[in-house]
């Protein structure tokens, strides 16, 4: 009997040691228990509301990877949750999960959610992931919120494709890096970017 118990104990210890060796997470930093409880509650709430809850989990992983402490991660996740709730209200049911994530980022950068909602109302069938992302980027580079929003809105309104909007962002970034004032760079580039009628000059081809 004793030998049977000993064998079971040995097997159990062996299994535990084996599991510990196979699971690389054991040696990785974790979210502390108190923070985990709050984060899990926010994730569950996001799931219940139909929000893209994986964005919250991604932020937890980002925080852990960057060595942030639990309260900091909780604060970031809580803010993102709140922003996704707000932007979903403004963007409406037509907004995709990625649009909500991008809109939340734009809101974090300073774009008023009402402006995000107006853009979506005018572009119900177009994905605004790239425009929202570019607006957030411009603001982070010093372009005033109103200028950034107007520039992106004018491009979307003119029928610019995502590639045009990405090119616009790259051009503005380079202008700023070369010393142009951010607002002037965005305004100037918005006037010349993503205008389909200016591309290719097909008229000259047709005349021949």
């Amino acid at each position: 009997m004793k030998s049977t118990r000993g064998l079971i104990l040995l097997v159990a210890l062996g299994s535990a040691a084996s599991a510990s060796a196979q699971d690389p997470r054991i040696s990785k930093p974790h979210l502390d228990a108190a923070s985990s409880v709050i984060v899990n509650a926010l994730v569950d709430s996001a799931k219940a509301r139909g929000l893209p809850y994986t964005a919250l989990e991604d932020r937890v992983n980002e925080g852990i990877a960057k060595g942030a402490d639990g309260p900091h991660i909780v604060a970031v996740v809580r803010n993102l949750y709140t922003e996704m709730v707000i932007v979903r209200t403004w963007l409406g049911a037509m907004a995709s999960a990625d649009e909500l994530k991008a809109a939340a980022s734009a809101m974090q950068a300073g774009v008023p959610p009402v402006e995000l909602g107006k853009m979506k109302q005018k572009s119900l069938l177009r994905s605004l992931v790239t425009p929202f992302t570019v607006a957030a980027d411009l603001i982070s580079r010093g372009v005033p919120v109103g200028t950034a929003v107007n520039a992106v809105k004018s491009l979307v309104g003119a029928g610019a494709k995502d590639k045009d909007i990405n090119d616009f962002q790259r051009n503005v970034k380079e202008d700023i890096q070369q010393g142009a004032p951010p607002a002037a760079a965005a305004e100037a580039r918005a006037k010349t970017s993503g205008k389909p009628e200016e591309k290719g000059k097909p008229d000259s081809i047709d005349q021949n």
Partner: protein
Amino acid sequence: MENIVEELQRPVRLDDSFERRLMVRVRRLHAERRKRRGWLGAAMSIAQRPAWATALAAGLVAVVTFGVIRVRQGEHVVAANGLEPVNFVLVAPAAKSVKVVGDFNNWGLNDSALVATNNQGVWSVTAPVKAGVHRYAFVVNDKQWVADPRAPRSAGDDFGMPSSALVVEDSTK
């Protein structure tokens, strides 16, 4: 250098009929060999064409295991089923190692970071990434967080270390 980076970042796509045409050809080859040599003979022919057999086997394993087809063409990876090939490139001549971490690989937790290869100071790695919007960053020499200088910045609190935004378009839509 800019041209090299542009070229590395340019995805190479196969048209939608590629998989169908590949399987038609595979079936035709298989049928021809069965007629000519019988089942055993056809199986032997795989050993005579190791490159072809390896590519086919790798493709089948990928389909079964990940539900994604990946075809190597030089430095480019073509992916399907909601995953798109993304080239991550960082010019860092002095770096000893460069990794890519982001939403798409759990930020490198559990040793899931993408390891870039060095080509005269241009570090690059191509990986299939789910269509959508992601945050990511480069980690240089396992300690320095670097945003992608060619990508939009990610907004919001980045825990004091920069991240970039990545929008991956679904090529099937």
